[in-house]
C-alpha cells in the first residue's frame, strides 16, 4: 500500500511541477532546478541522520564528488545526462562505502570529525590540481536542450525538468527504502544498537549501507547542481555547504523526507532574502553575505534546543497525526523519558529498556 501511495504522490507532484515549469518563467525555473538538486542531497542526509542515527557533516564533499564526476565525464566522454547522473551516484556510493566502512567502527563524535575532515580537505585538494580539476576556476559543464523540443525551448525549463525528474525518482526510491525492512532495521539500530544486534541484525552492514545510499543521493544532488550552475568549482562545495545541508535536514525535521523539502526551500530562498535585508540595513556586501551563515547557526541551535522534531514535527502536531517512527528525535526523546521515569516504561520501544546515559542523566 505504501508503495502505491508513494507512487501516486510522486506522479502527482511530477504533474504539478510539469505544469508549474510552463507557468513560472525562466528565472523561477532555475530556482526550481536548484531546489530539486539540493532536496536530493538533503533527503539522503536526513535519512542518514534521522533514520540510521549516524551523522555526517561532509555531505558537501559527496556532492562535490558527484559534481566533478559528472563534469569530467561530460567534458571528456560526452555522456548523456542520465548516464552522468547514474555515474555520479555510483561514484558517490563507492565513496560513501569507504566512509561508511570507517563509520561503522566509529561512534558519533569520531564519525562527525572524519566527515568534517572530508568536507574541509576535498575542495582544498581539487583547488590545487589545475590540470584535471581546473583549479579554483573549476570546470564548465554545458548541457543543451535536445533538438526534439524545438529551437525555442528554454534551457532553464529543460534543466528544471531534468532535475525535478531525477529528484522525484531518487526521493521515491528513498521513501520506499525507509518504509521497507531495511528502513525498519535502520531505526532499530538507531534506537539501540545492542538490542538490534541481539535481534540478529548486522549492525555494521546496515550502517555502511545507510552511508552508501545517503552518499549516492548526495552524488545525484551534486551532479544536478553542476548541471544547473553550468560550472563546478571548489568554492561551491565548502564546509558551509555541508553544514547548510545539515541545517536544512534539521530544520525540516530529521528523518522526514517531506521535512527535507521544507528545509531545502528555506535554505534556497532565505539566504538571498536575509542578505537583502542586511544590505538594506546598511551592512556592506561582505558582511551581509555572512548573515545567512550566522542564521544557519542560530537555526541549528534553536531547533535542537527548542523543537528537535523540526518543521515536519510541527506540521504533524497541527494535523493531529501521532508522530510515526520517522520522527527520529521524538522517539529517542520518548525512550529517554521512559527510561528516566519508571511509571512510563510501557512506552519504551524495542527490546528492553535503555538505561539512562551514565554520567549524563544527573548533574
Amino acid at each position, binding site marked *: 500500500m505504501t508503495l502505491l501511495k508513494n507512487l501516486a504522490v510522486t506522479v502527482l507532484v511530477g504533474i504539478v511541477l510539469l505544469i508549474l515549469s510552463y507557468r513560472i518563467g525562466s528565472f523561477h525555473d532555475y530556482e526550481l532546478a536548484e531546489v530539486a538538486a539540493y532536496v536530493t542531497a538533503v533527503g539522503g542526509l536526513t535519512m542518514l541522520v534521522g533514520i540510521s542515527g549516524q551523522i555526517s557533516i561532509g555531505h558537501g564533499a559527496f556532492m562535490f564528488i558527484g559534481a566533478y564526476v559528472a563534469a569530467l565525464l561530460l567534458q571528456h566522454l560526452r555522456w548523456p545526462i542520465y548516464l552522468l547522473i547514474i555515474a555520479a551516484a555510483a561514484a558517490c556510493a563507492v565513496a560513501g562505502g569507504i566512509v561508511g566502512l570507517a563509520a561503522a567502527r566509529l561512534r558519533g563524535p569520531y564519525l562527525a570529525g572524519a566527515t568534517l575532515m572530508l568536507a574541509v*580537505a576535498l575542495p582544498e585538494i581539487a583547488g590545487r590540481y589545475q590540470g584535471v580539476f581546473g583549479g579554483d576556476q573549476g570546470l564548465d559543464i554545458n548541457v543543451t536542450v535536445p533538438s526534439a523540443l524545438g529551437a525555442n525551448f528554454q534551457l532553464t525549463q529543460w534543466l528544471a525538468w531534468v532535475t525535478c525528474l531525477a529528484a522525484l525518482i531518487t526521493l521515491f526510491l528513498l521513501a520506499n527504502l525507509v518504509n521497507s525492512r531495511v528502513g525498519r532495521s535502520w531505526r532499530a539500530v538507531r534506537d539501540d544498537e545492542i538490542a538490534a544486534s541481539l535481534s540478529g541484525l548486522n549492525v555494521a552492514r546496515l550502517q555502511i549501507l545507510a552511508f552508501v545510499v545517503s552518499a549516492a543521493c548526495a552524488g545525484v544532488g551534486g551532479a544536478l547542481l553542476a548541471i544547473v550552475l553550468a560550472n563546478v568549482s571548489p568554492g561551491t562545495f565548502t564546509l558551509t555547504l555541508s553544514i547548510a545541508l545539515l541545517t536544512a535536514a534539521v530544520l525540516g525535521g530529521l528523518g522526514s523526507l517531506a521535512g527535507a523539502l521544507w528545509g531545502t526551500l528555506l535554505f534556497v530562498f532565505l539566504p538571498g532574502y536575509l542578505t537583502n535585508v542586511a544590505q538594506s540595513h546598511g551592512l556592506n556586501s*561582505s558582511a551581509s*553575505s555572512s548573515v545567512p551563515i*550566522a542564521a544557519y547557526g542560530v537555526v541549528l541551535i534553536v531547533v535542537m534546543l527548542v523543537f528537535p522534531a523540526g518543521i515536519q514535527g510541527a506540521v504533524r502536531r497541527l494535523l493531529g497525526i501521532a508522530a510515526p517512527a520517522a520522527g527520529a528525535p521524538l522517539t529517542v526523546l520518548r525512550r529517554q523519558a521512559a527510561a528516566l521515569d519508571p511509571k512510563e516504561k510501557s512506552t519504551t520501544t524495542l527490546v528492553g529498556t535503555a538505561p539512562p546515559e551514565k*554520567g549524563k542523566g544527573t548533574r
Partner: protein
Amino acid sequence: MQEFLEFTLGGVSQGMVYAAIALSLVLIWRGTRVLNYSQGAMAMFTTYVALIVINHTHNYWLGFVVAIASGLVLGAVVERGVIRPTTRRPPLNAVIVTIGLLILIEGLAGIIYGGSFRSFPPGYSVRGFNIGHVALGISPEGLYTTIAVLLAAAGLALVFRYTAVGLRLRATAFNPDVARLLGVRTGRVLTLGWALAGAFGALAGVLVSPTTFLYPNSTDLIFVLGFTAAVIGGLESPLGAVIGGLVLGVLLNYVSGYLGSDLVDPAGLVALVAVLMLRPGGLFSMSTVRRV
C-alpha cells in the same frame, strides 16, 4: 641529516598548536562527553578580539592576555548557554548544537570583521635560527609557540594533580554522579572545564594566526588537524593529546618537506582515517570498551 633536523624542529612547533587544540577538545570530552566542533571557531573569534586590542594598543602581550581571558569567558558562556540544555537529550543533539555554534561564530566574525584576510603579528621574530650556515628550521616564534603550549599543558597537569579544583575536575570526569554525591558542584566544574578549554583554544589561535592569516574560516583546517591529534592521543588523555599533536606536526612537516606542501592536507586526511580504522581508541589504548 640537516634537512631532517630542520623538518623535525619545524614540525615540533607546528605540532604544539595542534596539541593545544587537542587539549581543549580532551578537556571538554572528559567532562561532558561532547566533542566541541566549534573549538576552532571560538579560537578564531578570540584571536580577532586580540587583534583589535593589539591594533589599538600596539602591545602584543595585552592582546595575548585579552585573548586568553575572552577564551575563558566564551567557553563558560557556551557551556551555560547552549550545551547545558542538551544534557538530557540524545548525544546527536549536542553534536548538532556545537556544529551550529561553529557556523554561527564564523558567520558573526564575517558580519563584524568582514571576510578579508588579516595578518596577525607574531610575538617574536619569525626568522629562523641558524648555527653557522645550518638552518635549524625553528624561529624564535616557533620556540615561543612550543614553550607556551608546553608550559600551559604542564600548568594544567599540575592543577589537575595537586589542587582541590583539579581533584574535582578529575572526579567529575571520572564519575559525575558519585562526584555529585560527594559534594562536588559538578555543574560549576563542567563550566570551568569548558572555560579552560576555551582558554587553550584561544592560545592556539594566537599562536597559529601569524602563519595562517586571520579570516572567518581560518581555523577550519587547524581544528580538523587538532581533532586528528586528539584522536591519535585517544580523546581521553591530556598527555596523549600533546603527544598526538607532536606526532602529527612532525609527520606532516616531513610530508611537506620531502614530498611537497601540496600533500599536507591529504596526508592529514590519510592519518586520521588510518588511526580511526586501525586504532579507533587512539594509539595508546589497550582495549576499547563501548559504553552501553
